Each structure stands twice: as structure tokens, then as C-alpha cells.
């Protein structure tokens, strides 16, 4: 392999089905994932709007609810079980089909091979399979709404015995079974994806693409894929055992002596805590699966638009690896009040606080990247900077929740809800927005509307702070999460004003997203045609046409001679040096 490999030029398959449906082209698969996530995020957002509406108007009769869920909202009045099932599907769809799918499988599939100078992923057919398995998982999940009893109501964490006993509530029958099946399928799809990503990054980098020259986005996908590979197998096993408890009469998670609906169950010997351990062993790394690609992307975007090298590239990579390792040793902080050993809790909390250190490194290095730059205020930059602001805002509440002492009050209140929405539901999504605005010209050959994009950013940024800051406060007042209404408790009645405010802010923020949708679809067909390298960025995807040809580099494998962030190099006429430039 001393000569640059002479790769034959491949033409795209001609048939519509092979080209756009069962395609093995990483770019088409990336777009498929992107649109699957877009559909999912819309569904998830509409579910959350329905929930917010119900929380503030618990007695309202809504025709739309009745049309959508004739059983759960007879006469338009939402039942508690319907509310809880909306909540369960909202959480599941957002965590798995949006936050895991868009940044990693969507943008990762599209841009990983382009950024490392490869023609495709290492296993194109496996790639196709993993998309269609994800698709099937989504169909199975949504099907839960339409079976008897409706969707499950145990939340995305599905704690047994509630999730293990079909008699424990409506939705805990067929709906719950479908939920488990969906999660199992998603695990399989993610494992296939992880194997593909790792192999691609190890084997298919073009000549000169050393590890230290890889864009931080690639590092983000690499670390994320490693976490996925190690975490999803555990969830898969845990899900199979839960299924057996429900179907085969085993008792892995169900202890003896349970009385459900006045009936003594036959189960004996299991442990509800066991599921929590297994679930969070996967679940905490999952949080980083959602955020790490965004971290990589933000580093990339800040550097491009500040026209300045990333501040502390090695520290950024080290911090990502440290976050990955620490992400595996802190699962117990989700279980401080679960009845786990109090000694374990202390150990977990010390480890949890340690994660603050690499997180702080990332934050300050992002600011350090902007420091001394010559910042171009384009929409992707705004979203990346917004990510930094929200990452701080969402991460800082982790200092409270990571202490078992403080968790004694805050656990399962709206403080937690606000915390993880700020970091996963908003910061991570800002990463996705930044990626969309940044790479849109490359994906579709056209530019998104700049003024609309900026308006979208500013209004969303204001909106999310308006939603989630008061929500922290509501949590401090002790408001438990996962309540369909607040009528039963005196202390919750006093919080009605706060909830109304939060709901209004949520409607506003959701409405603003119409700007994004309009901009996205309008620009796809009518946007200004984009140059090959509109942002004057250095990485390899900008060396090819927009959109890239079927075989990416036209059969010529590129060669890399530079690091990924050579901006404003002294002595150069242009303020950027492409990675492929000698």
C-alpha cells in the first residue's frame, strides 16, 4: 500500500429503491437517519406539548386528544394513564430515536467517511441493516399506542416490578412488551452501528490522517461508538430478562409476596434493584452517547468560525476519553434513594463529581478557542456558542444532584427534569442544530436562510431558558416529576403559576421551531446554491462538491498533510490551510 490506492470510480445504483430506500451509501443512510430523527423529534415534541397542556389544564376537554387516543381520552379528557404513556413514549423516543440517532448515526454516517477521506463505511450492508433495524424499532415503539391498554406508563427507565407485571396497570400488558421489543431492536441496531464506526475509523483513514489530525467530530463519534459497543450489550441482556419475567414466569426482578390488585403473585426471589443497576450501567453512558458527538461538533464549529485553532486539542481528546471512562463508573448516582448501600452511594458521588473536571476543561477550552479569534457570526456559530452556555447551565445542576445528601430532597423532582432537559434535551439539541446549519450546504448543495436561522437561534435560546430556569425552582419547592396533575397536594397548588408560565414558554419555543422547519425544507429546494466550501473550513468534506458524489472523492483517495484546525497560520496568505494542502 505504498501507492495511493487506485480505487475504481463507482456510480450510484440506478434503481430508485437501491438508491434511496435500501441504499448502502453512507450519505443516503445518514440522511435516512437524519429524517428519522426529525420525524421522531416532532412526535416527541408534540407529545410534550400535549403533556404541558394537560398539566396546566387538567380538566380541559380536547377534541384532538379524543381523536388521537379514543380510549385514553374519552370525551377529550386525558386520563392519568394516557398522560403517563405519553411521558413514557416522549422519553423513549427522545433519548433513543433523537439524541442517539441524529448526532451519531445521522451526521456520523454522513460525515465520518468524508472527514477521514474514505469512500464509504467499512461495512455498507451492515450499515443499511442497522438503519432498517432502527426504523423497525421506531415502528414497534409507536405501535404500542394502538394495542389494547395503550402504551406503557412506566417511564423510559421502566423500573420493575411495575414494568414486569402486566397487571400493574393499563399499558403494562402488550404495550410494555412492545416497548421492550423496541428497545431490544434498538440495542441491536446500535451495536451494529458501533462496530461499523470503530472499524471505519481504525481502518479507513486516508494517508496522513493520524489520530492527532482527526477532526474532533471524528473523535466524538469514535468515543461514542466505543461507549455504545460496551453499553448496549448490557441493556440488551437486561431487556431479555425483563421479557422473560413477563412471559416465561421467571423472577429476575420480581421479589416474592407481591400483592397486585389484591392478588398474591407467584413470583419469588428476584430483586428490583438489579434492574436499576443494569439499566443505569447502560443509562449513564447513554447520556454521554447523546452529548459527546455534540461536544466534538461544537469544538469544530467554534474553531471554524473563530478562525482559530481549537484551544488545547489534546486536552479536548483526553477530556472526551476521560468522560467516557468516568461515564461508566457513576451509574449509581441515579440510585441514591433506591435503597442501595449507603457506602456505595458515597463512592459513586465522589466519582460523579470527578466528571465535573473534564467537563470544566471542555467548557474553558471552548471559551479559550473563541479567545483571540476573529469571530464570524453565522448561525452554526451561534448555536455552538449557545451550546456552551446551556452546557454550563445544565451541567452546573449536576453538582447538586451528584451529592447523595442533596439528592435526598431533589431526587425525582422537577429539578432533575430541568437538569437533564437542559443538558440532553437542549444542549445536545443545540449541537444537532449547529450541525444542521453547518453541514446543510454540503448535504444539499444549498444554503439555509441566514436571517431566519439567526431568528431561530435567538428565540429558541430565550425560550429554553424561560422554560427550564423556573422548572428548577419548581423542583426546589419539591414538586415530584411524573405527576399527571397537581390537584391532590396542597403544596403543589401554590406552584400552579409556575407551571402555567413554563407551559406558555414551551408553546412559544415549540412554535419557534416552525421557523427551523420552514427554513430547512424551503432551503432544500429553493435555497441559494452553495459553494463547495462556504465556511472556508479545513476538513476533507469541504474539498469535494456539494452534495458529494456517490463515491465521495471520485476514486482518488485524498492525502492529509495538516491538522484539522490550521486557521490563521502566520505567513500564509489565506487564513486557513486545508488538511489536504501540503
Amino acid at each position, binding site marked *: 500500500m505504498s501507492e495511493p490506492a487506485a480505487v475504481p470510480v463507482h456510480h450510484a445504483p440506478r434503481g430508485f429503491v437501491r438508491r434511496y430506500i435500501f441504499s448502502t451509501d453512507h450519505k443516503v443512510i445518514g440522511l435516512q437517519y437524519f429524517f428519522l430523527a426529525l420525524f421522531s423529534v416532532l412526535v416527541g415534541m408534540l407529545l410534550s406539548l400535549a403533556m404541558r397542556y394537560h398539566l396546566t389544564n387538567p380538566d380541559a376537554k380536547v377534541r384532538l386528544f379524543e381523536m388521537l387516543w379514543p380510549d385514553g381520552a374519552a370525551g377529550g379528557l386525558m386520563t392519568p394513564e394516557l398522560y403517563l404513556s405519553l411521558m413514557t413514549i416522549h422519553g423513549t423516543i427522545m433519548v433513543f430515536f433523537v439524541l442517539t440517532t441524529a448526532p451519531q448515526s445521522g451526521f456520523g454516517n454522513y460525515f465520518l467517511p468524508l472527514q477521514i477521506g474514505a469512500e464509504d463505511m467499512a*461495512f455498507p450492508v451492515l450499515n443499511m441493516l442497522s438503519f432498517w433495524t432502527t426504523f423497525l424499532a421506531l415502528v414497534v415503539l409507536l405501535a404500542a399506542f394502538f394495542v389494547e391498554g395503550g402504551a406503557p406508563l412506566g417511564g423510559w427507565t421502566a423500573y420493575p416490578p411495575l414494568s414486569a407485571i402486566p397487571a400493574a396497570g393499563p399499558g403494562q400488558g402488550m404495550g410494555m412488551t412492545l416497548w421492550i421489543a423496541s428497545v431490544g431492536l434498538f440495542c441491536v441496531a446500535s451495536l451494529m452501528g458501533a462496530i461499523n464506526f470503530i*472499524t471505519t475509523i481504525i*481502518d479507513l483513514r486516508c494517508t*496522513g*490522517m493520524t489520530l492527532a489530525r482527526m477532526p474532533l467530530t471524528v473523535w466524538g463519534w469514535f468515543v461514542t461508538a466505543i461507549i455504545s459497543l*460496551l453499553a448496549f450489550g448490557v441493556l440488551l441482556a*437486561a431487556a431479555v430478562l425483563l421479557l422473560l419475567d413477563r412471559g416465561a414466569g421467571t423472577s429476575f426482578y420480581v421479589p416474592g409476596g407481591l400483592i397486585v390488585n389484591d392478588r398474591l403473585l407467584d413470583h419469588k426471589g428476584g430483586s428490583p434493584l438489579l434492574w436499576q443497576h443494569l439499566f443505569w450501567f447502560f443509562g449513564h453512558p447513554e447520556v454521554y452517547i447523546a452529548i459527546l458527538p455534540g461536544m466534538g461538533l461544537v469544538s469544530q464549529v467554534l474553531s471554524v468560525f473563530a478562525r482559530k485553532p481549537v484551544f488545547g486539542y489534546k486536552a479536548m481528546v483526553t477530556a472526551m476519553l476521560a468522560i467516557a471512562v468516568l461515564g461508566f463508573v457513576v451509574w449509581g448516582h441515579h440510585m441514591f434513594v433506591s435503597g442501595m448501600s449507603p457506602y456505595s452511594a458515597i463512592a459513586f458521588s465522589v466519582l460523579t463529581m470527578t466528571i465535573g473536571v473534564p467537563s470544566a476543561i471542555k467548557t474553558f477550552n471552548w471559551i479559550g478557542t473563541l479567545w483571540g479569534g476573529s469571530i464570524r457570526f453565522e448561525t452554526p456559530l451561534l448555536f455552538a456558542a449557545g451550546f456552551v452556555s446551556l452546557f454550563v447551565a445544565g451541567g452546573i445542576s449536576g453538582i447538586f444532584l451528584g451529592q447523595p445528601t442533596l439528592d435526598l430532597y431533589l431526587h425525582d423532582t422537577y429539578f432533575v427534569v430541568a437538569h437533564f432537559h437542559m443538558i440532553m434535551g437542549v444542549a445536545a439539541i443545540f449541537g444537532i442544530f449547529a450541525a444542521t446549519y453547518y453541514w446543510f450546504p454540503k448535504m444539499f448543495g444549498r444554503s439555509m436562510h441566514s436571517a431566519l436561522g439567526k431568528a431561530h437561534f435567538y428565540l429558541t435560546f430565550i425560550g429554553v431558558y424561560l422554560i427550564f430556569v423556573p422548572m428548577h425552582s419548581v423542583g426546589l419547592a419539591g414538586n415530584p416529576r411524573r405527576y399527571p396533575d397537581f390537584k391532590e397536594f396542597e403544596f403543589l397548588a401554590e406552584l400552579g403559576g409556575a407551571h402555567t408560565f413554563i407551559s406558555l414558554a414551551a408553546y412559544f419555543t415549540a412554535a419557534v421551531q416552525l421557523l427551523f422547519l420552514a427554513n430547512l425544507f424551503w432551503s432544500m429546494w429553493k435555497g441559494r446554491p452553495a459553494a463547495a466550501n462556504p465556511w472556508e473550513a479545513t476538513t476533507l468534506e469541504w474539498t469535494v462538491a456539494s452534495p458529494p458524489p456517490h463515491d465521495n472523492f471520485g476514486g482518488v483517495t485524498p492525502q492529509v498533510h495538516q491538522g484539522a484546525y490550521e486557521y490563521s497560520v502566520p505567513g500564509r496568505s489565506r487564513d486557513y490551510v486545508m488538511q489536504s494542502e501540503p
Partner: protein
Amino acid sequence: MSVSKAAVLDRPWAGGTRPFAMGSKKLGMWLFIVSDTLTFATLLIVYTYLRMAAPSWPTPFHFSPGILFATVMTFVLLASSFTMVLGVRAMSEGDRKAAVRWIGATMTGGLLFIALHLTEWRSLIAEGMRPFSNPWGDPLFGATFFTITGLHMTHVAAGVLYLGVIAAGVARGRFSAEDVEVSGLYWHFVDLVWMFVFPLVYLMSVSLP
């Protein structure tokens, strides 16, 4: 800034080359093995956890037939791994016929393992063992036993099918030496898992005289 091409190519991680000097399929199989290891490890830790939590755990396996059977099954599996090594070796030396023969021997080992295992399952079921109860006490004994050995047996069965496809292809002149090696990796992994199932599930539950 620029590094000469030769200097870059000398380093395995510099791109344009495969750092582990192996095909992507082989690396992919290794990665699959990592994730599957964690799935099996999860089941084994679940078993350990539940067994530690149980007030008493059944120890119903007598030397004959239980332990004797399981020991013979272990021998069969180890021997089949060895024949697989010989199959991979034959293939790497270009001897397709011998490769097919050795893979066939491996498959026979796998089938024998499944047959012995099913016989054992049948006799345990005849004694009254179920996933939800058993005559000796803690109901989770049956649940963990059937789940762990069942998942392992599924892997063996899938392996036999996989090797069948490989053998048929090799006989018709398809597949490279590395393809055979990759299937061998999977087979050895199934063997490796059993090295933990055997002591944990069987030997820790022998009925001591």
C-alpha cells in the same frame, strides 16, 4: 508542518493503512465479540447477584450424570475449537479440501454439544425443573440455568449454521482464508464463554457427598 509520505506510512496509526494489519471483517468480528462478551457477562453477574441474595441455593448436580455430562460437553467444545484451528490452518495453506473437512468436524462437535445439552435439559425438565420453579428450592435456579445455557446454546447453533455457510462456500471456491479465520474467531468465542458457564453454573452447584 508537512510530514513526508514515507514517514507517515511507517506508522501504523497514520492512516492509509490498517493499524492491526488485518481485514476490516476480522476487526469487526473482534468488536462484536466484545459486545457479546458484555451481554454474557451481564447474565453471569445477574446470576451471581441473585445467588448471593438467595437465602439458600440448590446444589442438585450429581457427578453422574450432571457433571460428567457437562465435562464431556466441555471436552467436545474444546476439541471442536482445536479442529477449527486446523481448519483455519489448512485454509491459510491453501488446502480448501482439508479446510472443509476440518470445519465439518467442528460442526459435528457443535452438533454433538447441542445434542448432549438437550439431553441434559430433557432430563432436568423430567425431574421437574422449570424457569419458574424446581423441586430443590429457589426458583431462580431454573431461571438462571435455562437463560444462560439457553443463550449459549443459541450461539452454538448459530455458529454451526455460520460454519455451514462458510464450509459450503469454501468447497465452491469462495471465501478467503481470512473469512474462515473470522468464523473461527466466533467459534472460539462460544467456546470461551462456556469456560465460564461450566464452573459457575455447574461446578458451583455440585451436590457434595
